[in-house]
């Protein structure tokens, strides 16, 4: 009884994978039949194809095994990426925390005016160059779009200045004409102040604006980042913003990779179960065939 239940379970789990045990018999019958009688060639082809699809039982477990192997490889990759992100995060987190004193004098002096209403607006969107880091890039793109919507009207205009490949890829789709400047591969070598100062200088010199808003993700903890908009552009503020965003990126990548390796593990468990059940079912079927064949000969 238990065996029957198990068989039924196994067949349901791997319904498309395991062949119906009756079919091989029928197809082998069909093929032997076609050897004797002269069937038209297209019918022969059909019979052969059916044989390939439904024929040998071991194909089904092979598919599952291949799938298992690829899932295991994916899990290895995501685990490695998580490790890399964790070590990068540690390095960049101390730098971001050390640079936090840097923007405060400017905010204390100039205040914060996100609602400032002027003619020429520029939105500096900070994003990452690489993907697989959760939702940080789409968050900063969404926030930038919102700011763009608020600050565009009949006699107002707003433009984008984009840092990083990912925000560029998203914003190019619908607001290509509003992109004033885009800079990528900022993080090829570790971020330093000189580089960011040159970049801020570049923006100050080449882009015309009355008000400017920097959009970035402020690092809060490994799993939490806060979309922030700052209205002061100075190399110091920019440096902190870029560091905070890089830090959030690594944190988000770490948690994304952690959850995807966990998902891969779950999937692997399920596949292993399916594989074992299918194998067991095949063995059982074969045994039954042999035993019943033997008993038929005896009887």
């Amino acid at each position: 009884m238990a065996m029957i239940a198990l068989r039924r379970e196994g067949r349901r789990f791997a319904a498309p994978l395991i062949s119906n045990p009756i079919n091989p018999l029928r197809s082998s019958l069909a093929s032997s039949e076609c050897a004797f009688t002269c069937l038209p060639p297209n019918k022969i082809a059909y019979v052969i194809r059916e044989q390939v699809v439904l024929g040998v039982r071991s194909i089904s477990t092979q598919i599952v095994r291949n799938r298992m192997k690829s899932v295991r490889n994916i899990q290895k990759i995501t685990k490695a990426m998580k490790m890399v992100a964790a070590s990068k995060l540690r390095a960049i987190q101390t730098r971001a925390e050390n640079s936090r004193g840097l923007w405060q004098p400017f905010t204390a002096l100039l205040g914060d005016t996100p609602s400032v209403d002027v003619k020429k607006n520029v939105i500096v969107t900070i994003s990452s160059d690489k993907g697989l880091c959760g939702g940080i890039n789409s968050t900063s793109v969404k926030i930038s779009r919102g700011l763009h919507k608020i600050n565009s009207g009949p006699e107002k205009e707003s433009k984008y200045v984009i840092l990083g490949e990912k925000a560029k890829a998203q914003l190019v789709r619908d607001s290509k004409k509003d992109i004033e400047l885009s800079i990528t591969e900022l993080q090829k070598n570790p971020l330093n102040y000189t580089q960011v100062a040159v970049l801020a200088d570049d923006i100050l010199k080449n882009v015309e604006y009355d008000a400017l808003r920097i959009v970035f993700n402020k690092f809060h903890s490994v799993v939490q980042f806060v979309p922030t908009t700052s209205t002061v552009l100075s190399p110091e503020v920019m440096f902190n913003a870029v560091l905070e965003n890089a830090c959030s990126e690594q944190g988000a990548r770490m948690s994304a990779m952690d959850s995807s390796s966990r998902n891969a593990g779950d999937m692997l468990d399920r596949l292993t179960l399916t594989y074992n059940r299918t194998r067991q079912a095949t063995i059982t079927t074969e045994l039954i065939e042999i035993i019943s064949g033997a008993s038929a000969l005896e009887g």
Partner: protein
Amino acid sequence: MFCRATTRILSHRRLFSTTPVADDLFVTAWKRIMPNLDPPKTPLTFMQPRPSAASPSKLTVNLVSPYSSQFCKKQVDMVTVPATTGEMGILPGHVASISELKPGLLSIHEGNEVKKYFVSSGFAFVHSNSVTDIIAIEVVPIEQVDPTSVQKGLSEFTQKLSTASTDLEKVEAQIGVDVLSALNSSLLG
């Protein structure tokens, strides 16, 4: 319009002292345009609170650089900064001002103790509430500087200045000479 602007500024003044709140005008505008998304935070939300009234006897100093915060909210008696217009002493209750710094010696007087730092360049913001923010690109305690390597670097840059052919090289060498001679004189002085 002017009236609104002043009230805006005043409200910001108030924000520094009390717990910061988001800009209401911005939040309502955001809610109207993007009802499904929370408005972004602004840096004021993350600001460390600052004293509202001027402290009469002590000066609160923040000395920051891109790679470190040397100290934060330190209570001292006097600070001397190397401004481009000359050495400037800042005492508690100093009038609000902004000054650019040149390479030179920054000294912090705390009772009888004097701590000396070398700064490469930067800014000093003096607020009216006896808070001074000093932003420096590089800042090192003077005792950590090696005099022999300073001498060596100075002679190297002096030679570079004499042999420089392009304008860029000349300017670069000039900056090196300026910084290192300031460092040298502050080591000697």
